[in-house]
């Protein structure tokens, strides 16, 4: 009766933005990005990539239980990940073609 739709865990609500940002009042050069309707898949990936940037002193993420500045650095991290994914796609295509060539010569089709 109270259960929300399953699609609510990945579709944005009407009044929600995907990314929100608020500056941290207590620490200088710090801020909090809120990514709505995302999960560990993307969050952990971004956190690890941010930690590789020497300009970043601290990066962490929280994923609260459903029942309770810094903008340039984030853009750079996202761009790096996007390029890494592109590179991976070409690598996969090449590797599969190469494997197929080698193995189709051995015995025609499998």
């Amino acid at each position, binding site marked *: 009766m109270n259960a929300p739709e399953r699609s609510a865990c990945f579709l944005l609500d009407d009044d929600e933005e995907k*990314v929100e940002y608020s500056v941290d009042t207590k620490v200088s050069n710090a801020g909090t990005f809120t990514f709505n309707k995302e999960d560990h898949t993307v969050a952990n*990936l971004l956190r690890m990539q941010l930690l*590789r940037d020497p300009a970043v002193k601290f990066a962490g993420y929280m994923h609260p239980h459903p029942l309770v500045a810094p903008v340039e650095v984030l853009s750079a991290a996202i761009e790096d990940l996007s*390029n890494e994914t592109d590179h991976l796609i070409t690598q996969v295509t090449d590797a599969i073609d190469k494997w197929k060539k080698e193995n189709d010569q051995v015995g025609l089709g499998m």
Partner: protein
Amino acid sequence: MPQQRFPKIEILSIRPHHIQFILSETDTSMANAIRRIMIAEVPTLAIDLVEYAENSSVLNDEYIAHRLGLIPIRYVPEGSMRGGDCHTAFLPHRECVCYDRCPRCSVEFELDVDFDKVNMTRPDQERDLPLTVTSRDLISNNILVAPAHFLNEEEQDEAHDEGISIVKLGPGQHLKLKAIARMGISKEHAKWCPVAVATYRFWPIITINDEACQMLTMEQKQELVEACPDRILELDEITGNLVAVENAYEMATYTEDLKVAQDAMKKRPEDDDFVKVEPSTDRFVFSVETTGAMDAEEILFSALRVLKDRMNYLAAEVEKLKD
């Protein structure tokens, strides 16, 4: 730009329903992200809505609808033999501009099996035995889309039925329905999951200190070989040295047994280890097995595409924040 990684892929084997590859020079977060996307966010087709005209079988409507939803649906693009990525040919139902449904966002299947009609055509020894309604009886309105009846020929040869069995009918029973398949992702319901298994393991880095091993007797070396429950070490026949087994990456489980056995053999506790086995932090062995809805390499491509599109989407949203 400065912090980009350049990951490498090495394919170990490709079969239509199973792919194994090694992903290296990247972080666990990337390997985990790919794994999570393959399981949860690769779009596939599955039956989502069932309209009944007639059901006098022993199973009730929603039971049969549940079973129909779990049948893997295969989309084969024109000119290809492989189960392909359906996101190019279909729109998600909620984004489609049509009123109720259209060929762009859904595929209709019809099923009409009447025991009495079929019984008349059956050979004598089979007459009046229960009739199995299988996925072969689902007739699609789109020739590129059909249920995946079997994973491979081996399974087909061993099976009793001609497809995935849905329900069995007896005399006087009739099942007639229309099933509508839509595109979706596994996050919404597990029926849309394209993989049966998508896992990765860490590549084991096995360092054998040959100098230290010289001081061990053959019995002690044999003891080390038997200490590992995953059997990743063996004694080389010719030289009598400890070597790692060839397919160690498939078997390594990183238990403490080896360490404990070695500590017992060392003369002093602070001596170097004879053999060290550690999981690598940037090399992973993936194994992906499909349900038949898509081919294994297509799932990998689709997962990477979903990841790339997600990154682009987030980049655009973060750009908006800059203003």
